[in-house]
């Protein structure tokens, strides 16, 4: 079986700062990491692989600039068997639609897979669109907020997943292949690759495919292939310091209640 995990390299959000004058994100000197949701998706894929009778090959695929290779190398060290980077100037400036289209073309060239994993969202773009869009391109079902896969049965061609909702969890069944957008559970401890895994990763295949490899016209990709355009980027207005009430909880509650009443948020 072939598992395909879509991974994105993102700036380490703990370190992101916004240029106060221009309002743009300062990327210089900000270290890049593997999108944490994607790290979970890959760990989930690995865990499933370990429990399967069939031989499973895990490919990690990313669209990004050449340095996104670092994130793919990390995936190889964690345990992916193969890495594919889709990289070309033509792919630049893509919105989520053009991103998912490019990834879809990569999947086509690869010859498809039996199960697809993406993160629930990327910690920089945060749209949570690319996973479901890929499902749409591939004409497959999409399952979002997947915290776990409870059962996978390739012979009968289905899997059951645990999906998080506002109310709790639901159990969902889908036929294979399906695109899972994976949600990191709170107790998740990522696998730390050891020396041997890191050295082994050196010899695993890591290919770069460009526009020529994927085919299609330039207009389908990147900025030109994007339905949406970014007009400006700005940091959210900073919240005021707020008001602090000190003292016993009951007194505090009364004060807050009075305040909310004054503001017309609630009445007696």
């Amino acid at each position, binding site marked *: 079986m072939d598992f395909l995990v879509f991974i994105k390299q993102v700036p380490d959000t703990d370190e992101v700062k916004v240029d106060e004058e221009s309002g743009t994100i300062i990327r210089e000197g900000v270290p890049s990491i593997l999108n944490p949701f994607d790290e979970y998706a890959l760990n989930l894929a690995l865990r499933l692989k370990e429990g399967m009778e069939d031989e499973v090959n895990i490919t990690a695929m990313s669209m990004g600039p050449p340095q996104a290779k670092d994130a793919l190398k*990390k995936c190889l060290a964690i345990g992916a068997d193969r890495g594919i980077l889709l990289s070309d100037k033509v792919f630049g400036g893509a919105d989520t639609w053009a991103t998912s289209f490019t990834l879809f073309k990569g999947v086509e060239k690869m010859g498809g897979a039996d199960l697809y994993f993406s993160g629930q969202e990327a910690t920089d773009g945060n749209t949570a669109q690319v996973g479901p869009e890929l499902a749409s391109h591939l004409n497959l079902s999409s399952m979002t907020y997947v915290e776990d896969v409870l059962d996978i049965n390739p012979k009968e061609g289905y899997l059951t997943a645990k999906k998080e909702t506002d109310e709790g969890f639901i159990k969902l069944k889908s036929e294979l292949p399906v695109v899972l957008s994976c949600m990191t559970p709170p107790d998740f401890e990522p696998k730390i690759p*050891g*020396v041997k895994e*890191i050295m082994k*990763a050196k010899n695993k295949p890591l290919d770069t495919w460009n526009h020529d490899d994927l085919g299609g016209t330039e207009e389908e990709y990147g900025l030109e292939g994007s339905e949406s355009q970014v007009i400006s980027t700005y940091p959210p207005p900073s919240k005021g310091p707020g008001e602090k009430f000190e003292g016993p909880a009951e007194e505090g509650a009364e004060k807050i209640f009075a305040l909310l009443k004054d503001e017309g948020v609630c009445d007696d």
Partner: protein
Amino acid sequence: MADTDLARDDEFELTEEQKLLKESLLDWGERELPLTRVIEMNQEGHPYPEDIIKSLANLGVIMGPVPEEHGGSGLSWEDQAIIADQIGYIDPSIATAAGLMAVETGWGYTLNRYGNETIQEKFVKPAINGDQFVGIATTEPGGGSDVAGFESTAERDGDDWILNGEKTFISGTEEAQKMGGAFWVNVRTGPAPEDAPHKNMTSFCVPVDADGMNFQEPYRDAGRMAISTGGFIMEDVRIPDRFRLGEVDKGFYYTMEGFDNARILIGASSVGVTRRVLEEAADYIKERETFGNPLAKYEGIQFEFSDLYTRMKALRLMYQQVARMQEKRYQEAGKGERKREPKTYSSTDVARWISMIKWKAPHLAKEAADKAMHWLGAAGYADDYVFETAWKGVMSYCVGAEGGANIQKIVIGRETLGPEYVPYK
């Protein structure tokens, strides 16, 4: 981890794999050995927790340069030095960096090179896997610096050897007794010739549980408390000839090579300790205000920081160079076993560089910790910051562990000016 990052600009020199190694270790450190645990372990004292030994071994960082066919990871010495740096950063008390990684790797790798099948299977491999401990026992009550001046003996008895004597200030005695394993022990196999006392020394692997091995109460050290320092008396310890390392009467040369390897890693670890100390201190001096300004604005403090930081960067480049030199020597000579004479660098070329880093790096770490305590005032004196723990830990490498500072200066002088200028002859 500290908010200040003094390693970011190191990256351009590193390979992809080295970057991943550093990242893995940092993740491991955050999970298994945060500073709070380091300080706690230092206060609780030895023996070193086995779960951490095991998880460190699972990462593959103990004896990384041992070839894969012998159970190691086939790392280069530069890779291992980078690991040492990062482990020193994670554990500035230096118990992990020193007692576990550097001692076992520096000496264990040398055991791997000269040891026979039995030594590989019984002692080297189990230590790589974290199931046993392997340590070094050269120092004797008569002194440590004068490596050739030992009095312990071994006498041949058929297929066996009978060992007698005493070893002192040996790292990991409590851990070894708990986990099992062996010490590399140097003994005399013939009287010391007056003009060449380093001759007639032979090295053996002595299992901790051999009859006649009497371990002493461990010392109450000033620092590095999470790993023990102890001693043992050998009373007619009978061991088979298979436990002999390399050739009879050649022990001195293997020992010097073991020191070289351990010293590279001690140097690199001490750079890591310095980095952690300076980062933690930088976080503090940027925040703490006196007379309306953060401490970091005052030249009295800032200039000291700049000085330490600059010297740390210089030593980082230096350990990288030393490690590359040693790697080249090993590649030319054959890694798993000695096959040829290395061409590019002689052993004395490398020894000189190694002594430079072994001398300077621990002293810099100690100085950084000392300065940091001054910068923090009373807070720096309290043991909930790491400075006092680091200061006491790296001090072990200034006073003697893996060779005292003056001995390093003698090596540098001897290998540069010539053997006729050795001060003690």
